[in-house]
């Protein structure tokens, strides 16, 4: 079972709430996904409005909100936004997103580390969105991140696990859960991330803009389960280790 901070998750599929064609479709898709942790952009919801369309459709007992700081450009802005989100949404969980580059939404490692250091002291459960940078992941772990969220490829690109070699190093080295975030375009990408040992994946665009978001959410649910099962069952070794017709080490038997 996946545990982050003191929270146990049955589902290893985390989801986002952006880009859906309606709040109702979003709700149905999230229910189909089985996801228990969903990100909510502070910029999209009206926290002063109890009838906010997005929040209203997320009011399910098994769904925990993960506010994100999308829109901030610096550690200072992120810390301010985090405090606001904590107060308004009554959770100390935070997806820390600092991407000052609005074109590819790539995360700023320096500001992210600074903000993590500050927020950890304030008692936040921080899940930082970052590049698939193994050293940065260790630094964030030391700074008090509850998990790390390296990207598979740029947000919304649907390009899959372009960073797989680095994800494998991160998974090997990490003492906190590794959630592969961004770029997962198809259930097979999610399954692959789980097979290599990711603790969870976060999927938004691939579900939200699918022809049938609800069916796609279900497909991701199964893919994540299948990938995890395969990881736990231990995949067979890969490679071409066919026996050579004249074994190179046969002479050893004759010595």
């Amino acid at each position: 079972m996946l545990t982050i901070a003191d929270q146990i998750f049955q589902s290893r599929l985390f989801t986002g709430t952006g880009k859906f064609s309606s709040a109702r479709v979003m709700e149905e898709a999230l229910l189909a996904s089985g996801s228990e942790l969903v990100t909510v952009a502070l910029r999209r919801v009206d926290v002063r409005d109890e009838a906010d369309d997005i929040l209203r459709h997320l009011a399910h007992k098994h769904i925990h909100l993960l506010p994100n700081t999308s829109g901030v450009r610096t550690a200072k802005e992120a810390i301010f936004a985090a405090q606001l989100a904590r107060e308004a949404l009554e959770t100390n969980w935070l997806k820390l997103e600092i991407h000052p580059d609005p074109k590819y939404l790539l995360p700023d490692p320096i500001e992210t580390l600074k903000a993590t250091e500050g927020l950890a002291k304030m008692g936040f459960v921080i899940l930082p969105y970052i590049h698939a940078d193994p050293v940065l992941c260790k630094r964030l772990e030391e700074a008090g991140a509850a998990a790390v969220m390296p990207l598979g490829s740029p947000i919304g690109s649907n390009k899959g696990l372009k960073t797989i070699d680095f994800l494998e190093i991160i998974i090997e080295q990490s003492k906190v859960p590794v959630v592969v975030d961004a770029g997962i375009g198809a259930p097979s990408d999610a399954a692959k991330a789980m097979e290599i040992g990711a603790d969870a994946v976060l999927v938004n665009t691939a579900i939200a803009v699918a022809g049938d978001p609800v069916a796609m959410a279900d497909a991701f649910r199964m893919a994540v389960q299948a990938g995890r099962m395969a990881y736990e069952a231990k995949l067979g070794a890969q490679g071409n280790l066919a026996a050579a017709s004249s074994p190179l080490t046969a002479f050893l038997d004759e010595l």
Partner: protein
Amino acid sequence: MSFKEEFDRYGWDEVKESIYSKTAADVERALGSSRKTLEDFKALISPAAASYLEPMAALSRQLTQKRFGKTVQMYVPLYLSNECTNICTYCGFSLDNKVRRRTLTDAEILREVEVIKAMGYEHVLLVTGEAVQTVHVPYFKRVLELIRPHFAQISMEVQPLDQDEYEELIPLGLHSVLVYQETYHRDDYRKHHPKGKKANFNYRIETPDRLGKAGVHKMGLGVLIGLEDWRTDSFFTAMHLNYLEKTYWQTRYSLSFPRLRPFSGGLEPKVEMSDRELVQLICAYRIFNGEVELSLSTRESEKFRNHCIQLGVTSISAGSKTNPGGYAVEPASLEQFEISDERSPAEIAAMIRNAGYEPVWKDWDASLILND
């Protein structure tokens, strides 16, 4: 290097000729390439691309959904003043136009705000003419402070300002600034802006650089279509966008493509642009740049707007009034231009939903701009 220095190395006529000499093979190469260049953009806006409109539309739609999802952003203009010391041949608020001038007072602004809020808006675009005696930076500061508590996102379309003036306004909640070049054709620009501060082409073309240096969150670019050859003007817009994205990489960008609209005593467009050509331009912008926001105002007709949200446009206005006081204070006063799509925000939102998209009223939060 500033944009002006880069721009000065280009000749209008050469660019125009280069666009018009693009071939079907150039268009196909542009559509197939993984990273679009400015040469690709020329091909996509060229006459040769006209017969590729359907595949361009399909690609544009796919790219738009990938980035923006099935959503359309909603905004509304709030005209604060029609006082203006510029003469612009195409504008209803031009100095030489006989129209009663008015700048809204604080109390009047709040009455307008009330109506706009009741329509559901969280994103407001403040618009003024250029009248430095009355509509100046202290006025803008006062207005920002006045309305900031009421909106999640505040944009501004006023006269170009100096960098330090933008730096004063941004911490007060100013999220985006729109500054349209109108045309990149120097001689034609002079002809259409014979008097007032706006006559200074260089100051205007350098405005996005000043905004970028001031660290604005988003800026909007565009030309007024109808003044000059739209293909050439759009090429320079795309080039400007390219330059800005590389130079001020922390800023978001949006593009508009307003076509000249009639107003009382106004100018006939020199260059007509058909609906088909406007769709070609929208798709070309999207294929060239998957991340830029594309905005369409109520200048365009109902039917056209209904379809454009599925082709690449990501942001639209509705229920707009283009006269100061138009929502509550003085609805009957003269408008800057005649709007074409007169449907209410609720009707537009229903249209968007019926098309399978979500109208997004709020996509920013006042708390995301620190006031320090």
